[in-house]
């Protein structure tokens, strides 16, 4: 192979090159390729740093103008040029919390089904179907959410919740207000469906790292399937499952299009989860293209910077936990 490469190079040279010249050229091409790959890899690193830096620079006017008040103020008034991030941060956290509350148990349930209960012949098709759910673009969840999910929420689910929980003291405040269909709860539920496949995919993979010997030993002493899952599989894979959940949380926090469609986009904090609200990403998607340069744009960039920092921390923790499990499985 080398010989042919050298011959090719000799042929391509205008005058017959000596062997050492050809080898030298080959060596040059070799280190050139290495440098090329290294530069490309470094570019990936530069991308992340570039994102952080450009968002920080863009949001500096807002941060310096509003100071710490930017984080605790829920005012958002473009005409008065007064901006605060609290409503958006609150909406992001609440919708993600609702999504996790529903998506995580269901996602884990599917993972348990796939690894412990499912007939081997069905394992692959069902697994693929769940992964396809992850492949559906978020805009599709959005349009579906508006035309199909929102009317169901408005017509059936929300009146039911208001009827059952509304009169109760304490919890009642969570379910106050008219059933609008658009709102924090609807957004949270759509998010739950969207993160479910991520929880399932990661937990299925980590469940499969459990040594069969451990499970067989437990079955051997007469444990039921769910004593094996609860007593062997979960404890063994705890770190990995939490890592997978954090990964899903990272997705939920940054999800944009689906949320924008169904949350109602009202910049306020309300005690009721049926009320309309907004999230960081929905606000950016809605307002950025029309924002005036200056404080308005800078405030939206500041929201983006906050979202970037929150998801960075969550995702970094997730990766760190999953890596810890890989080390354990490797032993």
């Amino acid at each position, binding site marked *: 192979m*080398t010989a042919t*490469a050298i011959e090719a190079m000799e042929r391509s040279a205008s005058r017959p090159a000596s062997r050492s010249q050809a080898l030298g050229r080959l060596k040059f091409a070799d280190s050139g*390729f290495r440098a090329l790959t290294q530069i490309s890899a470094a570019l990936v690193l530069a991308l992340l740093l570039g994102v952080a830096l450009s968002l920080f620079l*863009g949001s500096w006017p807002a941060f310096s103008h509003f100071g710490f008040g930017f984080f605790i103020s829920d005012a958002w008034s473009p005409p008065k040029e007064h901006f605060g991030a609290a409503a958006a941060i609150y909406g992001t956290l609440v919708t993600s919390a609702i999504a996790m509350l529903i998506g995580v148990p269901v996602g884990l349930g599917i993972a348990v089904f796939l690894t412990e209960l499912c007939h081997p012949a069905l394992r692959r098709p069902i697994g693929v179907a769940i992964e396809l759910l992850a492949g559906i673009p978020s805009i599709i969840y959005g349009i579906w959410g508006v035309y199909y999910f929102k009317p169901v929420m408005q017509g059936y689910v929300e009146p039911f919740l208001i009827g059952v929980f509304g009169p109760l003291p304490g919890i009642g405040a969570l379910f106050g207000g008219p059933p609008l269909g658009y709102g924090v709860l609807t957004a949270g539920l759509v998010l739950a469906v969207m993160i479910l496949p991520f929880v399932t995919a990661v937990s299925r993979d980590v469940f499969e790292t459990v040594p069969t010997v451990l499970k067989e030993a437990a079955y051997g002493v007469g444990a039921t399937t769910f004593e094996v899952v609860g007593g062997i599989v979960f404890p063994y894979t705890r770190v990995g499952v939490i890592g997978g959940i954090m990964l899903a949380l990272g997705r939920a926090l940054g999800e944009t299009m689906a949320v924008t469609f169904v949350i109602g986009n009202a910049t306020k904090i309300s005690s009721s989860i049926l009320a309309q609200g907004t999230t960081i990403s929905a606000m950016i998607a809605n307002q950025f293209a029309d924002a005036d340069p200056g404080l308005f744009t800078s405030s939206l960039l500041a929201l983006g910077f906050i979202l*970037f920092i929150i*998801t960075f921390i969550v*995702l970094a923790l997730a*990766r760190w936990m999953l890596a810890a499990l890989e080390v354990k499985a490797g032993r």
Partner: protein
Amino acid sequence: MANLYSGRRRRNVMWTVLSYAATFFGLSWLVLILAALLGNGVGGLSLDVFTKMTAPPGVVGGLLNSIVGSLIVTAIGLVVAAPLGILAGTYLAEYGHHARLAVVIRFVNDILLSAPSIVIGLFVYQLCVVPFGHFSGLAGSIALAIIAVPIVVRTTEDMLNLVPNTLREAASALGMPRSLVIRQVAYRAVRTGLVTGILLAVARMTGETAPLIFTALGNSLFTADPRGPMSSLPLIIYEFARSPYPEQQKLAWTGALLVTLAVLGLSIVARVLSSTSSADKQN
């Protein structure tokens, strides 16, 4: 004793039923969403969709400019992302291994893999829209490329790690320089794997909306020039789905069906490719 056993059995049955219910719940969403897409989208499929431009309400319109825009923006994104991702993945798998730079880049790449796409959009806005003073399809392509690169890097590295070292050693023993071993032996061994990664990246780019809103912006006219604002299918779905006019809503559903078919089709092809290539390796 009997009580203890029946209690355990009851708990087992209860959790089993819940687990089945969870799976049913998950699968039913897929069915519901696909049914809604087919029910609303198929009816709108006509020749007009592929031959006419998006139109104001009252005029019969199609999606031609959006389809062409999507293809161009994605293609440019792919041309940028695929070589960059493959080279970076090659560095991680072939040269970097456990070097500190490689470990850091692997970690950063994993973060970028699930970073919110809207944040990438803001970054590209700062980088490519502000300096030039106008929105452009090119900026949209760069945003999509940044989203695609981590996917290609990840699959390239994973695939190259599957190449048996004996193959590399055999090639090196013949005197091949490292770069030729990689390009002529390792790449060839995992060609389908690399294609899989690229297909997955294209699938992801096809459905992305958020980073295009303030980079490509959208355009109701036909244009093949990526230097100006450009329409794309996800953008037009975003616009028309919120429109009060039934004919625009119908087009939004048709567009949604096209996007979903493209995305799911690409992921299924990628999956089939990767399963046949791993079957080859076992034989």
